[in-house]
């Protein structure tokens, strides 16, 4: 068992393992997405307060959750890479950042499109919104720092430090609601709805959350494979793969 883990901790074997796992997650993501959208648009009822606008929730909430979660995961991988000098973990962190930033952006965008009809404004400087924006800056900071450094080893370590220091902001996103009076609703959807109705909404939302998860895993694996290729280009196994035309 232990040997197995070691085996997959090497970029070479992880590369092929990831290659085999991607289709699985991609198909799952697509299936869940279709199911989630079906429930979201054709099963879930109209909200009696918000009308149809609430249907934004099916992407807003998954994106918002993913944005925070991916940051923690990224920091974790980066930290492991820093502590144990494992290249693969650092590459994982680098691969997660763009997807995390994308979800953060989507959460901001959908939230703001939702805010216009609900609150009458695109944007308020409310705690949760602000901290989500800071999260976007953290992702961008991480990526720009890594982009500014040419030497990948140094980029990994520097990125890990800033990612770990930035983790402080995650609890702030969570608890900031208590520090400011806030427009953003903290309670879940079920409050405004009768239980049966809410449950279809909730199901739709959860299905979409899983779809987002599967999508994130697939995309991150795909990206980490590219990063592995970029970084390991001088190794024998890459040129071997290349000769076999199996890159």
């Amino acid at each position, binding site marked *: 068992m232990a040997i197995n883990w070691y085996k997959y901790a090497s970029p070479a074997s992880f590369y092929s393992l990831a290659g085999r796992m991607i289709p699985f997650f991609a198909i799952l993501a697509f299936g869940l997405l279709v199911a989630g959208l079906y429930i979201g648009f054709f099963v879930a009822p109209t909200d009696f307060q918000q009308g149809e606008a609430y*249907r934004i929730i099916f992407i807003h909430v998954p994106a918002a959750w993913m944005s925070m979660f991916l940051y923690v995961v990224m920091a974790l991988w980066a930290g492991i890479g820093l502590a144990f000098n494992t290249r693969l973990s650092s590459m994982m962190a680098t691969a997660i950042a763009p997807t995390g930033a994308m979800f953060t952006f989507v959460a901001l*965008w959908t939230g703001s499109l939702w805010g216009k009809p609900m609150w009458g404004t695109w944007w308020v400087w409310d705690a949760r919104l602000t901290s989500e924006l800071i999260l976007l800056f953290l992702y961008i900071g991480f990526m720009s720092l890594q982009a500014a450094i040419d030497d990948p080893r140094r980029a990994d370590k520097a990125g890990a430090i800033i990612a770990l220091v930035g983790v402080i902001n995650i609890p702030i996103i969570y608890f900031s609601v208590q520090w400011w009076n806030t427009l953003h609703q903290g309670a879940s959807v079920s409050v405004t709805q009768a239980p049966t109705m809410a449950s279809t909404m909730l199901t739709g939302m959860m299905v979409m959350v899983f779809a987002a998860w599967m999508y994130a895993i697939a995309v991150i694996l*795909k990206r980490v494979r590219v990063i592995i290729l970029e970084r390991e280009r001088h190794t024998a196994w890459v*040129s071997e793969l290349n000769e076999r035309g199996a890159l």
Partner: protein
Amino acid sequence: MDWSNWSEFLAMGGYGIYVWGSYLVTFACVIGEILLIFKRRRTLVKRYGQIFDANGEDTSYQDDKTAV
């Protein structure tokens, strides 16, 4: 379910622009991200083909040396 026709579906009870604006941009982001990864990979593979071709002699030279 209670969409009687397409235009009603697209209107989203008057919130169409917000709902579809959200979904469209989200899917644009998702598809964009996927395309970017594929493009990054393609350029990489193409470049490697060239690099390895150019280094073809190099590796054989190393082999010779170890043989000696």
